[in-house]
């Protein structure tokens, strides 16, 4: 549905996007994961036609984005990171403004207003001035606005970052509902947990480069290298040093009395690790196999990407 190839964005000498490529399939929820300053918002702004780019190709349903910009923009919705409205308008008035801008009739504006306000649960507040809304309400209203002309694809830029846990869950539920209805969603965040909850595909963006694009399941299959957590009474350093040199161990991390052992070969480690620990003569408090989650994958990819 959306294909991005070699996208480059520069601000003077600063190359913010260094040639990123990815493809979003119809009906998927695509997670765009990256730390602050990675270039998520910049990508979003390009894909929603707000800013230009220096190099690369964007195709939407096979059509060139630049050449068909106006038409394409009518098919997508954008929820920016910090949505801003005309604060002196009520929700109804703002929706009417956006509806007119999209060429909708007064009647369909009226009907659609009730629909989208229902979806985001703001009907009760619809007559109030938008300027007085709370952060969570603004975020939900932004989703209502972006859904207004029934787009086929939605871009959400960190919709949960500024919200409290309750607000976050509401937004994630909303995304899941939209996914059920077949909406294609491109969703940026720095919160890994959000990705695990709603996305089926993802890219990890780091300093303007995509370090990996994959679907969530195969990413986990491919990159999950089991981790053993071992807690000891003393002798932590010595054991860690012994383990460090072994070929089937990727990495050993020490935290107080705990050692986290990242293993490369699960079969060998199942047999060998416990023996080595036993031989060391340390007092073992616990010995656990932890399946690594997305967070571990992210840390490994972003901080130690020599081991990808």
């Amino acid at each position, binding site marked *: 549905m959306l294909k991005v190839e070699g996208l480059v964005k520069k601000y003077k000498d600063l190359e913010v996007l260094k040639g990123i490529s990815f493809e979003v399939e119809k009906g998927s929820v695509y997670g765009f994961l990256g730390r602050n300053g990675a270039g998520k918002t910049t990508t979003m702004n390009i894909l929603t036609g707000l800013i230009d780019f220096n190099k690369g190709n964007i195709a939407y349903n096979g059509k060139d984005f630049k050449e068909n910009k*106006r038409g394409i923009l009518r098919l997508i919705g954008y929820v920016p990171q910090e949505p801003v409205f005309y604060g002196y308008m009520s929700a109804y008035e703002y929706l009417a403004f956006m509806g007119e801008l999209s060429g909708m009739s007064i009647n369909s504006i009226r009907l659609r207003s009730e629909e989208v306000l229902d979806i985001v649960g703001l009907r009760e507040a619809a007559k109030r001035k938008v300027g007085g809304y709370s952060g969570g309400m603004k975020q939900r209203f932004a989703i209502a606005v972006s859904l207004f002309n029934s787009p086929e694809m939605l871009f959400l830029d960190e919709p949960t970052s500024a919200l409290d846990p309750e607000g976050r869950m509401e937004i994630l539920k909303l995304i899941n509902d939209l996914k059920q209805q077949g909406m294609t969603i491109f969703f940026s965040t720095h919160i890994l947990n959000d990705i695990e909850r709603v996305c089926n595909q993802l890219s990890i963006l780091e300093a303007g480069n995509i370090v990996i694009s994959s679907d969530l399941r195969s990413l986990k299959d491919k990159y999950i290298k089991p981790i053993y957590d071992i807690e000891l009474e003393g002798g932590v350093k010595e054991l860690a040093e012994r383990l460090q040199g072994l070929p089937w161990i990727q990495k050993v991390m020490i935290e107080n009395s705990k050692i986290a052992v990242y293993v490369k070969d699960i079969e060998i480690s199942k047999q060998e690790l416990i023996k080595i620990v036993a031989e060391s003569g340390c007092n073992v408090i616990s010995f656990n196999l932890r399946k690594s989650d997305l967070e571990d994958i992210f840390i490994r990819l972003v901080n130690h990407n020599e081991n990808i």
Partner: protein
Amino acid sequence: MRTFKAYLKKEVLEAARQYRYLIIFIGVVFFAIATPIMLRLLPKLLEAQMNADLSSFFTINRRTAIQNYIGDLVEISYLIIILVFSGTLSDELSFRKLVFPYSKGGSPAGMVFAKFLHNSLTTVLAVFVGFAVNYYYANIVISGEGASINEVMTSALLVSLYFLFGISLAMIFSSLLKKGLTAGIVTLAVSYSMIPLSGLGVLKKLAPYNLIQAANKFSMEGTLPVITATIIMIIAIIALTCYRMSRVEIIS
């Protein structure tokens, strides 16, 4: 056209809710009433102070009353109007209000035209009302030679066109500068610095400020070049503003 209509309505709502109509009408019509009264009272007050007959120093008739009003319009009302409208694009840009309209495929030119039309109509209406009120009051409060209503409306037209030029200047600076106030100050600085230049050489015929000189004479005579030049400049400035607004990066 969709964007134009949507923004025209939005501008009306915004101007009403943010008391812009009120500010502009007060800023224009207040002097229409106050100037004749001041002109009537000032000599009397001074005479009472100085115990002398000063009537020979003041030649006040209905014509000079209206000319004084034109002076106030250009000096004070113009400033008010420019400052009210100079945030028209910079506020949209710096407060990121255009993210939704632009990302829904809104047309930058449609928005610029809607804003220019709205701000212009508001101003022209205020100026004509101001002149009508001034004409009426000058006739009540002051005696002596007067100007006909036709002459007064001619002046109103010329002053309006000068104001439209200012409004277009405010729009382009508003699209270029981050703050409305800065755009307003730059617009005023440009306008005022054109006043002394407007008497020089070929500018005598073409500079917009000469519209005010003509308004003071209540006559359209010989104004065709300056009217044409001003209209062309306004069109060019608005076209540039459209270009700028279609190029500007909207950062969300």
